[in-house]
């Protein structure tokens, strides 16, 4: 494919200063079962090229799924005409230094290729899982789904960049809904996405999870409502990853700080002067951009500007050091960034995206954290999220919580929510879990940009504890 891409690029006729072609081909199979029966089965294949040109300091992007030479030439011509039209209002004049000429490959680490599972076999496993999830009279609905994605991104430029990346990604969930009289509770695995293969759908492991989810859904029906109080809060990785995403990842994006996102996703409370100075969190907080963690959702070798991806610390011992901004944002702002310019598919231009944003593991075991808690609440599995456009005032809801009294778990709580403001919250961090508590979570649905793009992000996170957080329940 790289060979044909290079040849297609060589054959293009143009007077651009630079041309790049990104070929994006992705196949996603979505398979679902409900209540012991087959559910929705859909597959989507995306196949197209983004032709990107630079002329007189202005980039323009034209996406096409006509992959013939004539189709690429038409896209290239249109991109050049858009360049000429836009140059008069150029926000920032770029040159070819923002399109490095790297070459290489990336392949997702996989134990068992996805192709080894037939649609029929996947369906059979999902059906069995929902039968297990439903095995209680109080369960009114059980579902299991898996989204299996295989992506190939190939890139070639007139500067000489040549790279190919092959991704194998699975996102999966198990869900049980329990009902008694007017009380309805839902418990799930928590939508979990990673780079992996067919091993992600290993039946015996998932059946154990299905048993737990079913029992906890039923347990929630008779659980006490989460109390309204200010207390110590322990967050498991399947909730904390979204807290990191919304209140650390997004506000650190340099294009938000530069104002690009103000009309849609929003601005940021972080200003350029804060880098190197702002005490974002307590000294225990170390946050990394890490595209090298094997198997995490958004690991890769090159971003879509062709910049090689390396690990870097964004927050070190609580101090803000570095932003989430690709080479264009770094050039515009003069701030330190990372290789994170990515696009959702062949039809959208790249811009600053999160990739893997992780909290580095600390020293505490989960047992020690609980034992060190006089009174507190431990929350599992995200179910709701909301934050303002500067990424300050947040509220999250979880599926399942446990009360801690005198260092012991003493009961289950339902409808747990908490709220706070970003910098005070991260400064109230008192414990960071050790490597045993560290889990890689990821979502395929981070939304941003105009035109809109939903992209895959990863967050590998240990358990953490926070002091003095407002918690509350549901209803009213």
């Amino acid at each position, binding site marked *: 494919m790289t060979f044909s891409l290079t040849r297609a690029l060589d054959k293009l006729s143009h007077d651009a200063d630079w041309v790049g072609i990104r070929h994006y081909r992705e196949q996603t199979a979505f398979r679902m079962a409900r209540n012991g029966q087959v559910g929705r089965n859909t597959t989507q294949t995306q196949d197209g090229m983004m032709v990107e040109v630079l002329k007189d300091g202005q980039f323009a992007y034209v996406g096409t799924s006509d992959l013939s030479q004539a189709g690429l030439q038409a896209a290239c011509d249109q991109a050049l005409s858009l360049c000429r039209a836009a140059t008069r209002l150029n926000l920032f004049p770029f040159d070819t230094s923002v399109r490095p000429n790297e070459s290489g490959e990336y392949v997702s680490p996989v134990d068992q290729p996805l192709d080894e599972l037939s649609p029929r076999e996947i369906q059979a496993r999902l059906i069995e899982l929902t039968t297990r999830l439903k095995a209680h009279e109080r369960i009114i609905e059980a579902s299991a789904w898996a989204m299996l994605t295989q992506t190939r991104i190939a890139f070639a430029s007139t500067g000489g960049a040549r790279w190919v990346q092959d991704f194998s990604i699975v996102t999966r969930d198990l869900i049980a809904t329990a009902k008694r009289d007017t009380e309805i509770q839902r418990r799930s695995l928590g939508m979990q996405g990673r780079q992996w293969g067919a091993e992600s759908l290993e039946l015996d492991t998932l059946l154990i999870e299905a048993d737990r989810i079913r029992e906890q859904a039923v347990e929630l029906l008779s659980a006490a409502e989460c109390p309204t109080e200010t207390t110590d809060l322990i967050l498991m990785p399947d909730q904390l990853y979204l807290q990191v995403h919304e209140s650390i990842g997004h506000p650190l994006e340099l294009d938000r700080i530069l104002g690009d996102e103000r009309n849609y996703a929003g601005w940021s409370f972080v200003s350029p002067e804060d880098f190197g100075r702002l005490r974002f969190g307590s000294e225990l907080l170390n946050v990394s951009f890490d595209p090298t963690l094997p198997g995490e959702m958004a690991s890769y070798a090159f971003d879509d500007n062709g910049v090689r991806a390396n690990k870097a610390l964004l927050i070190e011992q609580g101090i803000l050091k570095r932003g989430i901004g690709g080479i264009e944002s770094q050039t515009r702002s003069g701030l330190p960034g990372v290789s994170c310019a990515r696009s959702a598919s062949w039809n959208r231009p790249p811009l600053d995206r999160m990739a893997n944003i992780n909290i580095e593991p600390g020293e505490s075991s989960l047992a020690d954290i609980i034992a060190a808690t006089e009174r507190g609440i431990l929350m599992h599995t995200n179910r709701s999220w909301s934050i303002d*456009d500067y990424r300050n005032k947040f509220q999250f809801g979880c599926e399942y919580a446990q009360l801690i009294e005198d260092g012991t778990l003493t009961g289950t709580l339902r409808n747990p929510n908490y709220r706070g403001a970003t910098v005070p919250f991260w400064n109230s961090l008192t414990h960071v879990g050790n490597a045993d508590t560290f889990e890689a979570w990821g979502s395929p649905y981070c939304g941003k940009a105009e035109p809109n793009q939903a992209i895959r992000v990863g967050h590998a996170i240990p358990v953490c504890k926070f002091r003095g957080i407002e918690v509350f*329940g549901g209803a009213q």
Partner: protein
Amino acid sequence: MTPWEEVFDEVAELAFSRLGSDEVLNLNFCAEDTRFLRFNRSRVRQVSAVAQATLELELVIGQKHESHTINLSRNSALNRAAVLDTLGTLQAVVPTLPDDPYVSALEHHGTSRVVNTGQLPAPEDVLAFVAAELQDIDLAGLFMAGPVHRANANSLGQRHWFSASSFVFDYSLYSARQKAVKGAYGGADFDPATLRAVIGDSLQALEVMDRERKVLAPGKYRCYLAPAAVHEIMGMLNWHALSAGAHRRGECSLTELVDGTRMLSPKFTLDEDYSLGLSPRFNERGEVFAEKLPLIVDGRLENLFVSSQTAKEYGLPSNFASEDEAPRSPVIATGTLARQDILSELDTGLYLSNLHYLNWSDKTRGRVTGMTRFGCLWVENGEVVGPIADLRFDETLYHLFGTGLLELTDFTESHVEVMTYDQRHVGGKRAPGMLVQDMSFTL
């Protein structure tokens, strides 16, 4: 350039000609030619264009079915190869799948063709306008223009086509103190004078935003929610609020309303009303929804959305809702509050122009949280004091549309869908403003 309608008809004919006697094929087609101009500080951050089309092929063999969506282009040879390859894969896979007990047989629901044309501006026209008139203003936003198409056909002879040519300039303006107001100008026929007037209104609204910011403590406030803020709350109705299937599955966010144990305000009436003209009436099975269906009348539930799948599973009559059983063209009925009386009736409280990032605090009980954003003001004794520091609300739909609802305005505003995930979305909604008492703010 080959019209997308020709592309669709060619691949449909090809695919239908390759079916076995026991196979039924359902096709859904989306296409667009769009130019995007992304602005920051009234200059171009990114410029892009796409020519894109997708075709979903759903093959049904008895009780077994599966769908596969592919990209198409204007290249006939590539399209034909892709369609035959995909159909062949489906013909191999579908017989291996288990029976779906809830598949309802595809039918011939007739044919229709709606084509709305327009006078769209070229990117150069918009760039010239921004260069000439907006260089002293800090504007961020997106301009997009082009035709959008939706179609459905099946091998039983059904065929529906919907095209709309439109442009949208969705923007926000920023004051020296970095406070913002939101605006949008969209339609089918571009007129620079109208754009000038719309931006002029936004600039006027921006003046008051530069006054001293009012920081309010959490608590209950009397509020006026402008139509754009109401549109955001209506958006929550897309998440299983009025879905018959979701109600049976325990996912409904208005469970008590549906069960008849709780009501909304007698002033609250909601219809699904396709006279808005923003989206096709046919769904992904080519079934045609009623021109107008009352959903909530005088605070009581009148109808839920029932898709053919839900109908089959739970033994209900289908009203040809789409598979997600969400509103596609919802309209809230007007009340009696006149525009000139809004501030005096609000008296002292919050004037909320927009809301942001809504999500559930307790879904099955209809409790929603979200933030104020863009043009939110503190009003005292019927006079605007100044902008507020952002507040988080946490309130039930039963209060906002029920116990707290004092009055609705006698005018409405439409929101044309500007979402562009994967592709330009179609549809929209229409709502009046609402005067609400004791709305809860928590942070």
